[in-house]
C-alpha cells in the first residue's frame, strides 16, 4: 500500500486524498465542531499542540540534516550554521520571519561561494 503500489492513474490521488486531505481537513472540521465548546488552554489541547509541534520540528530537522536535491550537495555544517544564524537573527529582529530567511540564505550563499 505504498505510493507506487497500484499502477493506475487514480491511485496517487487516492493516496493523497486519504493521507493528505482527510488527515488535515478532518482536524479542521473537528475544530469547527468543537469551537466554542473547548478551551484553548485545556490540557488536551496543549498536549495536541506539543505532539504536532515536535513532529513538525522533526521534519524541519530532517530537512536540514538530510535534505534532498541540490541542497544534499552542500556540507551539513554549513546548513546547520545557516539555519542557526537565521534563527538567532530572527529572534534579535523581534521575530521577523523575513530577517531569518534572508540571513540563512545569505550564509548558505556565502558558504557555497567560498566552498565551490
Amino acid at each position, binding site marked *: *500500500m*505504498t505510493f*507506487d503500489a497500484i499502477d493506475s492513474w487514480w491511485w496517487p490521488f487516492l*493516496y*493523497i486524498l*486519504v*493521507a*493528505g*486531505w482527510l*488527515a*488535515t*481537513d*478532518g*482536524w*479542521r*472540521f*473537528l*475544530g*469547527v465542531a468543537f*469551537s*466554542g465548546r473547548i478551551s*484553548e488552554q485545556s*490540557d488536551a489541547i*496543549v*498536549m*495536541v*499542540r*506539543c*505532539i*504536532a*509541534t*515536535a*513532529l*513538525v*520540528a*522533526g*521534519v*524541519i*530537522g*530532517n530537512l*536540514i540534516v*538530510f535534505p*534532498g*536535491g*541540490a*541542497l544534499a*550537495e*552542500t556540507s551539513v555544517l554549513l546548513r546547520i550554521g*545557516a*539555519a542557526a544564524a*537565521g534563527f538567532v537573527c*530572527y529572534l534579535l529582529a523581534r*521575530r521577523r*520571519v*523575513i530577517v*531569518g*530567511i534572508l540571513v*540563512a*540564505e545569505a550564509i*548558505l550563499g556565502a558558504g557555497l561561494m567560498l566552498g565551490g
Partner: protein
Amino acid sequence: MVNADDHPEGVPAHGFRWFLRGVRTAFSIPGLILVSTFIGFASLAKAAGFTLVETVFMTGAIWALPAKVVLVGAVQVGSSLPATTLAVALSSMRLMPMVVALIPEMRGPRTRRWVLYLLSHFIAVTSWVLAMERLRNIPRPMRTAWYAGLGGTLVVANMIVVGITYVAVDALPDWVSAALLLLTPIYFLTSLWGSARERATHVAMALGLILGPALHTILPGFDLLIAGIAGGALAFLFHKFGRRAA
C-alpha cells in the same frame, strides 16, 4: 461611506467589497514569504519524484505546508498508506486548536455552519496569523467574506506558483535550487516558533529538532512518529511540572 453594521440588508454588495479587501491582504509581506516557501515546496516535491499534477493537486487539497512536507517525506521513504496517514494526521493535529481559536472571531450573527466548514479548509499558519491579527478591525458580518478572499487567493495563487516552479525548476542553476530547498525549513523554524502559545511548544520544538535527525538513521520510517510522540509527551510533562513548580 456607509457603515456595514447599520445596514445588514446591504450585505451582498458590501460582502464583495470586503472579499476584495481579503484578496488584497494576500498580497502582503507574509503572503510573499508564503509564496517563496511554496516555490521551495515545488522543488522539494519534484526532487521526491511527484508529478506536476500530483504536486498541484496536493497544494489545493491539503494546503497546510507542514502536512504536505510530511507526506512528501513519507512517500519518499516508501511509507505505506496507513503509516503516512498517521504521520500526516499527527503533524496536523495542531490545526484543530487553531481552528477552535479562530472560528469564534470569524463567525457573524447569521453565519451558516457550512460556510465555516468550507472556510476552515483555508486555515494554515500564514492565513491564521493574518486573520488573528486583523479580524478584529473588520465588521463582524463581513469577516467570512474577507477571510474567503484572503484564504481563497492564497490557495489559488500558490497552486499556480507551484505549477510554474515545478516546470521551471530544472532550468535553475544548482545554487538557486539549494537556496530554494533551504526556504521550507527556515520558514517553519521561525514561523512555528512565533506562533507558539505557551513555553511547552518551544520545548516541543527543540526536542523535535534533535529527535527527528537523531532517529532518522536508527529508525527510518518511524523517526517522525517517535519524535512527535516522545518529544510532545516530554514537552507536555514540562508544561504540567513547570506549572506546579511556579
